[in-house]
């Protein structure tokens, strides 16, 4: 049987405490200003992408932004919701059937599901009928307590020369969360290939 000497025991414990304390101190150096900015930006990103809504509508093409949102959501493990807003004109009752629009919604949200599946993330989808696209988006963002609204290019920008449409500007101005808008570049061709936009393109070319 080994007898433990109290002096030896005290030295043993002191030694372990000294080594552990030294290494702990070493591994926690003060951070620089640049690192502080980076750390704040990181935590801001975590806050920003906790819950993301990707918006589709008749004239809002968000497939490319959906791919970006899917990658973000995967990296940050965010909740992701894709909505398609079917705009019902005032000349029709709120629950009027919008067959063509609803068909386009199925295509757009199906594509969104495919993008999400490819990125290996869960995606909820929802089709919403509303008088105003802006109001529908803001209401859903409020209901979902969204941190980020993601929008693709608005068709209107192409022929007016304005970078953003009024709807997008209003969403950006009134949303209580961050808004990420993907405006197609000069040589972009995403819109041409988007589901449901061929008809619009043809309409634009018509005299």
């Amino acid at each position, binding site marked *: 049987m*080994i007898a*433990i*000497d109290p*002096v*030896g*025991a005290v*030295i*043993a*414990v002191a*030694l*372990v405490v*000294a*080594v552990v304390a*030294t*290494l702990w*101190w*070493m*591994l926690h*150096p*003060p951070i*620089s*200003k*640049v*690192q502080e900015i980076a750390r704040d930006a990181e935590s801001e990103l975590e806050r920003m992408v906790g819950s993301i809504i990707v918006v589709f509508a008749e004239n809002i093409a968000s497939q490319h932004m959906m791919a970006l949102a899917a990658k973000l959501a995967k990296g940050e493990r965010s909740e992701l919701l894709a909505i398609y807003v079917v705009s019902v004109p005032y000349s029709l009752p709120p629950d009027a059937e919008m067959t063509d629009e609803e068909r386009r919604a199925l295509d757009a949200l199906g594509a969104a599901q495919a993008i999400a599946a490819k990125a290996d993330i869960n995606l909820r989808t929802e089709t919403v009928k509303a008088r105003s696209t802006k109001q529908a988006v803001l209401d859903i963002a409020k209901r979902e307590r969204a941190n980020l609204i993601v929008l693709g290019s608005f068709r209107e920008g192409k022929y007016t020369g304005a970078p953003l449409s009024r709807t997008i500007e209003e969403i950006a101005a009134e949303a209580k969360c961050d808004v990420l808008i993907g405006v197609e570049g000069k040589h972009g061709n995403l819109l041409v290939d988007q589901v449901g936009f061929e008809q619009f393109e043809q309409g634009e070319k018509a005299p």
Partner: protein
Amino acid sequence: MPDQHQPELKRSVTPWGSFSWGYSDVGADIFVGLGLVLGAAAGASNVAFLFAGIVYVCIGLAYTELAATYPVAGGGQYFVMRGLGDFLGFIAGWAVLLDFTIDVTLFAWSCVDYLSEVVPVLLNPIHPWIHFIAVFGLIAGLCLLNVLGVRESTTFNGVVSALDVISETSILFFGFLFAFRPELLVHTMTTQWPSTFNLMLGASYAIISFVGLESISQAAQETQRPASVIPRTSIALILTILIYALAYSNLALGMVPWHQIPLDAMGHAQTLWQWLGNNNNNGKAVALLAKEVPYFGALAALYVPILGAILLLISSNSGVFGSSRIAYAMANAKLLPSIFQRVNRRFRTPAVSIIAFCTIAVVELIFAAWPSLDPGAAAFYAKFFHGEGGIGFLGDLYAFGAATSYSFVFLALIALRMNDPLSPRKFRIPFNIPMTYKGERVLFPVIGVLGFIGILSILVFTILTHDLGRIAGPAWLILGFIIFVVYRRNKGLPVFGSAPHDWRHEQIGILRDAGELELMDEYVACLKAREPAHAAEAR
């Protein structure tokens, strides 16, 4: 002509990476140093370690301040060149090169000693050639791997260092807990106190347990935010190694072994520390001590020799790439011929440097192993060098090289405090005397002076007590001096003077490249306050 961009070293070394770079070098020293010091300083081994430890703390603080202020590859050689000029920079670098080549041989030698605990045939006294061939094979293998560009990763270093920290802390914890007897320590110290000569010998060996801080400085250029990180990793390394060295020496003197200690060659009973310090065991003292820790020793006997051998092999490897790196930096500073800068096209490694310094390591191995291989040589060594040879010879040169280069580093620290007070020092050694020098307020480092006296005394101990070291060490410096004179004359550069340097411009670049932007701003502001035109141009 298109812009030619020099590829920059990526700053990817984290605080733990920086620590493990140093630890894989310094941490291995105690595996070699413990047995040597016990054999020399006997009952005062802990005092020898304490004295060397105090000097080492001063060295560590000096390196910490300098590496954080000037985070570039080159380490001690760069600090001395910047503080004292090209010639002394060369001498310091050349002494560090001696240490790196010894590092290769000494740790490969000790690696084989530790492996012999698992494969006893490696240390068979009847067939000493087996040991020689094994060490030679390790050096040749490391040389080949480095020429091919294969080396252990920072991650591997980090994992081995972490395992070793846990292992050594455990050995010491259980050793003190189960087997330490303070009265035995006091008894050993009072009855086995060595002669003054042996105490000096022990102190000079003890310093080799603390060699390798250079590695942190060498890695400064690859460390993230070096000015902030290096002070912490250096201080943590200093404290950890000091704790281990003092704890091991006290434990070895005051520990009751778990098993019966074998009789010595003459058939006499011997104590634990005598057994650890004798010529057969001094190369693997930590493994043997770990085996004698009650209960824990059963486990330690299985893994400590292997872990020790891996750490020693990493340390040996750090000598191979460390020597080629420092030779590259010296060639870059026009202190050595440009052949040492030459990078092999196929493997993209400084093959010439690696092969040259590994060849020197092999020559050192031959000198160390000769007495054990040839009875005639043994008689010669016995007649002229008190029979010194083997690991003791390597320890001699290691202590000589370290003491020489560290002496210059202290002088460089003092010179740079006086001549370059504007460079921002995120870490400054405490205890300074404020004074005015050439119109500037400077802080004179008292610890720098004390450290210089301490390391100089160890250099004197080394010269007085090491028969081979006092010849081979200065001979190495004379050889270097001849190479330096021939090279500088051929290039039309001053031998004792310095080539022109724009240190201020260089310092701004160093801080910018290190990502220490706040320090760069501080430096530029200081320059602007004194010489507005120069600062604007430099930036």
